[in-house]
């Protein structure tokens, strides 16, 4: 069976940007997204008129592909606003890579923006409440992730302290990132003394609610090498969907990241040992534990002790969420694209005080719904192709 590796190295990320991370009062979601997109195109040394593939999600505009094409005054050949939650942008990368390789388009812009903090004041979810869950009024999404955490604790003995260590690590990285919204000291005790939201998850276990926008630009390898920045090659990308409602996941301690990760690694011809930096969608502290296990960075059930040992913190053996993640950097609602931007910045040696020296291979991982959609992307510097 094909491992789908015929797209390996065929396309590259040539632009990346964030805008308005934290609080961006007065801006609409479209304005934030449009500015991030403009900055990413400028970062690539391109002009917006060259963008012929447009991929976007906005929190509440389900035809946002049409809206942003009009906003920019461009006429893309391919417009895609498909959604799988916060992992949607990985699907966009898959389609962009296919379309670029097929010659249907030449330059793809993938963009997202949200003003949920200063606009809505709370997490904006695009997931329709299930008629079978809604009568129980779960405080989703946190309740669903809390149920998964309860199961992980029951089966593997994962502790609240280990969950807290995920938040502490994220904060340590955020303290090295001037763009991070939440900075300052955070101890395990500090995290454990925050208010319970849905047991065992406390405020410190939950992602931020911020504004923010991100964007990346992709093109074919032949065009990528002549642009402003060194291209970051797409080595593998894969998505997997196993359920929508948390009660329908077969085993609440195992996510579809086992599948998306395995396929992305097979495409890339890489193993976990090749990865220098990891950025996963940490909507809640349990996510980082589940995804590091499911992607193969530690064994199932050992994520808690692995993280509590300091392995993923600054100075650890496996740098994870070097921007501070959704827990401490920013979380505008669909964080997935930010994992890609941070991975690109690390591989370009643009990460300042948090730079991982000599990073050549990065893994970005997105999550959508309630652990429902999982997507993994491996990227590398030019000579890794």
């Amino acid at each position: 069976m094909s491992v789908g590796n015929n797209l390996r190295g065929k396309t590259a990320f040539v632009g990346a940007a964030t805008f308005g991370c934290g609080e961006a009062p007065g801006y609409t979601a479209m304005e934030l997204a449009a500015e991030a997109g403009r900055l990413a195109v400028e970062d690539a040394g391109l002009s917006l008129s060259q963008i012929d593939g447009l991929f976007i999600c906005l929190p509440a505009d389900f035809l946002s592909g049409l809206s942003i094409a009009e906003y920019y005054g461009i006429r893309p050949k391919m417009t895609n606003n498909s959604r799988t939650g916060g992992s949607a942008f990985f699907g966009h990368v898959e389609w962009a890579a296919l379309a670029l390789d097929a010659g249907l388009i030449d330059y793809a812009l993938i963009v997202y923006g949200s003003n949920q903090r200063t606009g809505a004041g709370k997490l904006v979810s695009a997931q329709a409440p299930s008629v079978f869950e809604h009568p129980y009024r779960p405080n989703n999404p946190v309740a669903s992730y809390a149920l998964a955490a309860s199961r992980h604790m029951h089966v593997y003995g994962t502790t609240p302290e280990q969950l807290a260590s995920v938040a502490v690590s994220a904060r340590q990285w955020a303290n090295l990132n001037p763009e991070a919204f939440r900075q300052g000291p955070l101890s395990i005790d500090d995290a454990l003394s925050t208010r319970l939201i849905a047991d065992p998850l406390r405020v410190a276990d939950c992602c931020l609610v911020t504004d923010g926008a991100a964007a990346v630009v992709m093109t074919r390898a032949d065009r990528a090498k002549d642009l402003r920045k060194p291209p970051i090659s797409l080595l593998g990308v894969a998505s997997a969907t196993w359920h929508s409602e948390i009660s329908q996941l077969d085993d609440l301690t195992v996510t579809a990241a086992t599948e998306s990760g395995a396929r992305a690694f097979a495409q890339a011809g890489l193993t976990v040992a090749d990865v220098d930096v990891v950025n996963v969608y940490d909507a809640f502290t349990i996510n980082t534990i589940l995804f590091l296990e499911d992607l193969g960075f530690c064994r199932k059930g050992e994520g808690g002790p692995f993280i509590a040992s300091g392995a993923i913190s600054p100075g650890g053996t496996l740098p994870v969420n070097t921007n501070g993640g959704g827990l401490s950097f920013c979380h505008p609602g669909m964080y997935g694209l930010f994992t890609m931007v941070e991975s690109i910045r690390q591989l370009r040696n643009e990460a300042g005080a948090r730079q991982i020296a000599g990073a050549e291979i990065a893994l970005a991982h997105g999550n959508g719904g309630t652990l429902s959609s999982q997507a993994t992307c491996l990227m590398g510097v030019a000579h890794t192709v």
Partner: protein
Amino acid sequence: MTQEAPTATYFRHLTEGRFMLQHSPSTDEWVYYPRMIAPKTGATDMEWAAPSGLGTVYATTVKRMRPPAADVNIAIVELDEGPRMMTHVQGIAPEAVRIGMRVRACIVDGPDDAKILVFEPETAA
């Protein structure tokens, strides 16, 4: 065969005081939530039947409320027939619900002027 409207039928049974689920004779599987097509097997011959009403807590959390509102248990119960469902475990402090606890279904008034299925510890029944 084409199923009688699954969602409406499930809630109609609850309204009439009965916990009923779809069961497929050909595959001997119980289906929840109710569907036109059984997941994975694709069976379409489901008939409405009464499950035992017994199950085991698979996962549990407490939705913490700001006082004076009371905290609420949110759980996933695995029915003895196999399917799992989101529900409340009641009749016990919300944080005292444990994974592995045996529970029994009961029908109570829900928040939307409709009946809902909840569970209580089996020993309390």
